[in-house]
């Protein structure tokens, strides 16, 4: 039997994102030079929400991009089937910018490794910072997040999923035994 447990509800997610938005602004002293990039697919809507919050707090606009890292993954040709490729949308140069990379769950770190390689093909950012909603541990590469919603120690056989809805009212983070 699969056991399912809600570990974060809509309000919790909302508060975490608000805090992260403030932390990003504090660390970077405003939105100057900031570009926020969501990783397909889980990071994109989180990035969009963070961008909305930061713009509201500072009253400035923050650029938003989307990145599909599939083609940079180290397992792209070894999985059973070729993963579908989503759209990458970074229509602005990243040179001398501060990139905030956003993903939903930080796990092995391999996605982030792929994402950093991909970003380098779009220019030479001044700095890359990582924001994640959940850090579940089990890193396989020396990677850490700069901004974390919640640290959730987990077992390897558990699945953690971040389910975001369009209006945000039924957002939740669930952990289930695989």
């Amino acid at each position, binding site marked *: 039997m699969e056991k399912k447990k809600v570990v974060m509800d809509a309000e919790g997610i909302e508060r975490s994102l608000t805090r992260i938005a403030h932390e990003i602004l504090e660390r970077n002293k405003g939105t100057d030079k900031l570009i926020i990039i969501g990783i397909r697919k889980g990071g994109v*809507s989180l990035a969009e929400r963070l961008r909305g919050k930061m713009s509201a707090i500072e009253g400035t606009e923050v650029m938003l991009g989307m990145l599909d890292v599939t*083609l940079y993954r180290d397992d792209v040709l*070894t999985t059973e089937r070729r993963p579908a490729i989503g759209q990458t949308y970074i229509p602005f140069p990243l040179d001398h910018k501060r990139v905030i990379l956003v993903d939903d769950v930080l796990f092995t770190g391999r996605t982030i490794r792929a994402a950093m390689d991909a970003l380098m093909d*779009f220019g030479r950012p001044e700095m890359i910072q990582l924001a994640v909603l959940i850090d579940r541990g089990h890193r396989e590469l020396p990677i850490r997040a700069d901004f974390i919603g919640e640290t959730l120690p987990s077992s390897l056989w558990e699945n953690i999923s971040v389910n975001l809805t369009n209006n945000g009212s039924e957002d939740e983070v669930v952990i289930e035994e695989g």
Partner: protein
Amino acid sequence: MKRVDRVSPRVPCAHGYHVPTGTMCPRVQGGQPTVSLSDRRLENTMELSRKDMLEIRDLSREEIDLILDTAESFKEISTRTIKKVPTLRGRTVITLFFEASTRTRTSFEIAAKRLSADTINISASTSSVVKGETLIDTARNLEHMNPDIIVIRHSAAGAPHILASLLEQSIINAGDGAHEHPTQALLDMLTIREEKGSIEGLKIAIVGDITHSRVARSNIYGLTKMGANVVVCGPAMMIPRNIERMGVNVCYAMKDALQDVDVVMMLRMQLERQEKNLFPSLREYAQYFSLNRDNIKLAKEDVIVMHPGPINRGVEITPEIADGPSSVILEQVTNGVAVRMALLYLLSGGAK
């Protein structure tokens, strides 16, 4: 014909607008992008579980959609300053061309290189073929240099199929005689889908020497599968008997074929494939079957004009139409690279 002249290659932006590279789409201009958060392509769980790409005929509609979706995502890579992703690092692609080609071979080579594969080009005129080596011997020798994908063009229909049955490597058909040219049909379908949103229900005319055209054959299989109404047009001796069985209508006059069409696909007059002269003169052919500023008025106002190249200017199409606002001929070339990248990606992998 109200379309504006386009010079730079265009990619669909996050909102689905086609805008010149380096400029913002209409929704971004003067404000922040309201990004579409979901990508329908990622919901596609279809897979291309085949070793080779030999013909459109045996592809399913879902497989075609998967290839076109993947190609759409790949298009963006060619617009970057660093036009390369590491995906096929360490893989080797051989292009084996027994027939002349600039576009198709360059396109395959660029596609492979943008995916970081190593490419080796062999053309018949510079290979052992001139010393009398058979196709099968050539292929067996190449096989033992351990390539991963072999792209072949040959004047004999079925040549890629022979290689596919003999070799472990993935074989991609880049044109076999008058049989099929699957990657051309795929890039044509991608271009139509981008311009028109969908292929379903469109009226599409294919004009020229249908009998000798592998481009026509592959497109007929593909477009009818995708739900288009296809009409073929040309001189009677250049239209195969019983072609209606492929699900197309036949017209023998341009004025009938072009009536209210959404897409006109002109074929190149392939003088090299005709054993004997099928018509008295190019001039006479042009008189009856070239696309010009008069007969294009019969088509829908937003008609798009396609041609697989190389163009015989003044024969099947007048220069003013080929270079005109309805022409998507150069976009076809851009899309060719994306479609071939998609195929190389989808055919690569550990699980064979």
